[in-house]
């Protein structure tokens, strides 16, 4: 395609393509039947398949959490015994992390939205995309078998030597997560290639939506970190099957080596979970502030900076595991550094809202909740990263609260913001704005009630993962449990209005939020191949000072000459010649 004389720019003839409102044919009815769904290579449907799966696992993980919280209402045993309790908190952690958080925004929302934001017809490798969904499914089947044949009680971290000696079914569980890792790797490979090679004409790197930058950074982490988890779990499986003696001290191995290996993946993995959330928040805040994003490059590059520094901080999980004090100091310092790019993001989002015309629709409300909760989560993370404080707080409820503020207050709120934001594009239906705001407020209240007391009791010394406790903590535990119930009510309301929207929702317009971003310049729900034309991009995705007509351009077909469309010549940098 590239003509040899064209250096960086070329002229194409474009015309405006207004998105069709309420189309009769769209991706949801292009193919029919269960079999068509199971074998689809359409990235949008695969995204919805993932969305269904993670919703299921969020429900399962959430029910387990409610079980735990109910047991903790009283200091002594109330209705489950200690062994069952160990299994339940392990499953809650493993399911929420490996089956819900890791694939949530990248595989579910990312799959749906990435090609739309690039103006591409699909991801680079659609069949690989479907394969990665089935690999995910196979991994979950292994895990479910493990749960029903002995369960697992090691905690989601599978620390040796306990995990090599416990009688529960660690082997199948870790093998399931090993398989799951390949799904994550393939998604990452797919996204990186798609972003590099399938951008629409004119969509240069400095016009990429920030969500794409965030997914790009996430994919890099997925590709670089997940193989290390894979080999770690493979070694763990071999340790149990053959006793190879790499991790188990009783046969000559080193358990701290396991921790190094495990956290080399699992610390970057928390950035796999949170960085795509940053991308969603950037989109939502700019759209609902009607304003160009403040500090585009600062936000884009800080995602990459987090991805990079995230690989160098794994040792902060092992401050009390006997690593050298020099190593601990270096890891502590590097941990503080992660706060810088994160802070850059927060301030840029605030600056974007400043003097914007803010519209507090449900997605924006979730973005506000995100900013509030994630800031608390981030600050407490810095406190845990300082050496002296960590000695005191290590393995207490403080860590539990910090982690939930980052993962649930951060990532889940970002996921909900994104889900409410892109819901009309996914299903072509609107949800009840009133109930969406109600449930957002309820979840916010419930969340804080559940986890703020945990900071307090953690700093007073309540250790995590204990199934009973001394009386002085009872008030905190009860507050926390009530908070969990309130959150559950919020999610039940959400399920209610979402289902109502699917069945009876008002039809959504192509661009209900008035966004300038590319995914909104096609009909809702999107057509089978995303765009009926080849989109051409001349403006940045957040240029709200420019007219909408400049965001709906596509290559004009010379065969349609008899139609009286206004055609314009524009210079675009071709996506394939990105230099």
């Amino acid at each position, binding site marked *: 395609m590239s003509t040899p004389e064209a250096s960086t720019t070329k002229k194409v003839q474009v015309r405006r393509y207004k998105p069709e409102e309420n189309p009769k044919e769209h991706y949801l009815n292009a193919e029919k039947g269960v079999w068509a769904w199971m074998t689809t290579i359409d990235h949008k449907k695969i995204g919805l398949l993932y969305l269904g799966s993670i919703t299921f696992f969020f429900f399962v993980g959430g029910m387990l959490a409610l079980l735990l919280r109910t047991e903790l209402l009283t200091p002594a045993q109330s209705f489950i015994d200690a062994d069952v309790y160990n299994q339940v908190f392990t499953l809650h952690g493993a399911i929420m992390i490996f089956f819900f958080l890791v694939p949530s925004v990248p595989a579910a929302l990312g799959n749906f939205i990435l090609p739309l934001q690039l103006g591409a017809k699909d991801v680079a490798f659609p069949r690989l995309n479907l394969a990665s969904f089935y690999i995910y499914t196979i991994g979950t089947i292994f895990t479910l078998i493990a749960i029903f044949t002995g369960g697992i009680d090691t905690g989601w971290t599978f620390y040796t030597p306990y995990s090599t000696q416990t009688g529960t079914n660690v082997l199948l569980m870790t093998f399931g997560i090993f398989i799951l890792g390949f799904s994550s790797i393939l998604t990452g490979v797919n996204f990186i290639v798609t972003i590099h*090679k399938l951008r629409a004409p004119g969509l240069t790197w400095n016009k990429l939506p920030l969500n794409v930058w965030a997914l790009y950074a996430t994919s890099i982490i997925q590709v670089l970190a997940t193989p290390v988890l894979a080999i770690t779990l493979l070694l763990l499986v071999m340790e149990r099957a*053959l006793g190879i003696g*790499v991790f188990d001290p009783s046969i000559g191995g080193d358990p701290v080596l396991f921790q190094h290996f495990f956290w080399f993946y699992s610390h970057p993995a928390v950035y796999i979970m949170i960085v795509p959330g940053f991308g969603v928040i950037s989109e939502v805040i700019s759209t609902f502030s009607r304003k160009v994003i403040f500090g585009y490059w600062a936000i884009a590059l800080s995602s990459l900076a987090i991805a990079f520094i995230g690989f160098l901080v794994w040792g902060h999980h092992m401050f009390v595991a006997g690593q050298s004090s020099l190593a601990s100091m270096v890891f502590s310092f590097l941990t503080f550094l992660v706060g810088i790019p994160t802070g850059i993001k927060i301030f840029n989002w605030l600056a974007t809202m400043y003097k914007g015309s803010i519209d507090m629709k449900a997605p924006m409300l979730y973005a506000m909740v995100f900013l509030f909760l994630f800031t608390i989560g981030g600050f407490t993370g810095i406190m845990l990263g300082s050496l002296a404080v960590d000695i005191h707080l290590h393995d207490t409820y403080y860590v539990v609260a910090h982690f939930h503020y980052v993962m649930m207050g951060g990532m889940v709120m970002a996921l909900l913001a994104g889900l409410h934001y892109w819901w009309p594009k996914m299903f072509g239906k609107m949800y009840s704005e009133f109930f969406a705001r109600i449930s957002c407020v309820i979840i916010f209240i419930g969340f804080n009630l559940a986890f703020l007391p945990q900071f307090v009791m953690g700093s007073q010394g309540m250790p995590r993962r204990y199934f009973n406790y001394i009386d002085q903590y009872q008030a905190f535990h009860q507050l926390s449990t009530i908070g969990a119930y309130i959150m559950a009510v919020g999610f039940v309301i959400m399920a209610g209005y979402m289902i109502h929207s699917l069945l009876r929702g008002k039809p959504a317009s192509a661009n209900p939020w008035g966004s300038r971003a590319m995914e909104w310049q096609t009909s809702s729900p999107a057509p089978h191949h995303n765009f009926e034309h080849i989109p051409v991009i001349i403006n940045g995705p957040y240029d709200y000072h420019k007219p909408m007509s400049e965001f709906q351009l596509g290559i004009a077909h010379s065969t349609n000459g008899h139609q009286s469309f206004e055609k314009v010549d524009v210079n675009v940098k071709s996506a394939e010649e990105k230099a």
Partner: protein
Amino acid sequence: MSETSAETKHPAHLHHHFVDSDQQFESSKMGMWIFLVTEILFFGGLFAAYIVYRAWYPELYLEASQELDAFWGAINTFVLIGSSLTVAMAIRSAQLNQIRGLIINLWITIGLACTFMVIKYFEYAEKLEKGIAPGIYYTYDGLEHEKANIFFSIYYMMTGLHGLHVIIGIGLMLWLVWKAKRGAYHSEYYTPVEITGLYWHLVDVIWIFLFPLLYLID
């Protein structure tokens, strides 16, 4: 790009979501390179374990590596390097549209890969007979070092995982031969040959690191 180029020419191998063959080829190649990065990190974990235990038990590595047969290891190294040459020649044949040459070169590569596996089989068999098995099944008493089993655990993990990659490579190349015989590849479209070649070179390079690290320590 002119709007006609995407529609007038639409070869059979081109998937609908790509604009042209170049874009498709570049995408596939880039995807393979990124996959190879994940492979390096996958093996990287094992190399890290190797380094850690070698730092702790240097004398164990010196002693235990003498149980490995450097002669057959060297033969296997040459076999794999030779197969890298033939797979490169297969790609060259595809570029020149010489389908017969492509098939012959693929068969030679498969033959060499099988030779590697056969030699590996005899190496494994000889050790297992002596009782040099991984982990708790280790019963050999010819070595004095009490942690001798750990060296061989790492040896079996590394070479075993590498061997698995060789077997996958054989499978991929058999598939290439099958497709090539049906005329799927020609000078305009040989992407699967190219990216399988990339994979095969990586398998080769990993062995080039494994051989001195395991066989040639003393």
